């Protein structure tokens, strides 16, 4: 089962991207009037995330385009560093939120 905190962080990043894309999708003709509803959902999500994790997410957002990156073939797709075996085991088990030892980004396993 996916770590609930990681799930919240993924949802947060998804909402942040949705907010970032609003002007672009509006220009394509889509309805996107409910910005305040998305902001409310974001605020509600922030309350569920542990403060140290949120702080890490926010710091990473200032450095990178995305704070959470996928792991594919045991490689961090943020910095392309191979993930150490012990972290892979912990990451795959979804019990912990794992940070890349190379770039510090939060890692998300796809499989």
């Amino acid at each position, binding site marked *: 089962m996916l770590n609930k905190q990681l799930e919240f962080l993924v949802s947060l990043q998804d909402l942040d991207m949705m907010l970032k894309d609003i002007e672009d*999708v509006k*220009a394509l*003709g*889509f*309805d996107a009037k409910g*910005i305040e*509803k998305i902001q409310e959902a974001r605020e509600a999500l922030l309350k569920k995330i542990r403060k140290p994790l949120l702080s890490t997410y926010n710091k990473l957002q200032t450095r990178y385009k995305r704070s959470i990156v996928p792991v594919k073939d045991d490689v961090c797709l943020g910095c392309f560093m191979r993930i150490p075996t012990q972290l892979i085991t912990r990451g795959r088990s979804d019990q912990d939120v794992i940070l890349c030892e190379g770039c510090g980004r939060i890692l998300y396993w*796809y499989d």
Partner: protein
Amino acid sequence: MRVVWNKKSDKKPKEAEKMEVQELVNYFSKDLFVPKLKSKTKAAVLVEFANLFVESKVVRKQDLILELLQKRETLGSTGIGGGVAIPHGRTTAALEVKIAFGKSEAGIDFDAIDKKPVHLFFVVLAPPHDENNRYLPILGKMVEVLNESKNRKRLLNVQTFEEFIQVFEGIE
């Protein structure tokens, strides 16, 4: 269909101009093709597509995708009129750009801008920063293609994935 391009500029977004319609074919797949949707409501059809993306191994967590699609509808309906909806979103849970297609003969009330039931659904999922930055061009091209009533009519008649692809390959 009423909504197409930004009324201020009356121009196609640049992103849409960068993509050939045939390129869209690369993002469809047989396991993301549903000629007869089971759902009868907006909520149910979002669940049906979220499940489809998990079954097709595009994503592994259904609830993350479902939440994304639901939140996007909170922002505003993706029912763009003319019996078409294009639910979409970037998500950390997806590794590549994928488009699912579903058809409802009866139509589903999707709060579309023209208030008419939706028959054709194209659900676009993309990773946060897809390698070639194709997300917005894809959305733009989808809107452009589905703005044409002849394309919508042809899509309403498709029964197989092969026929579906032929429609896109035949669009000029």
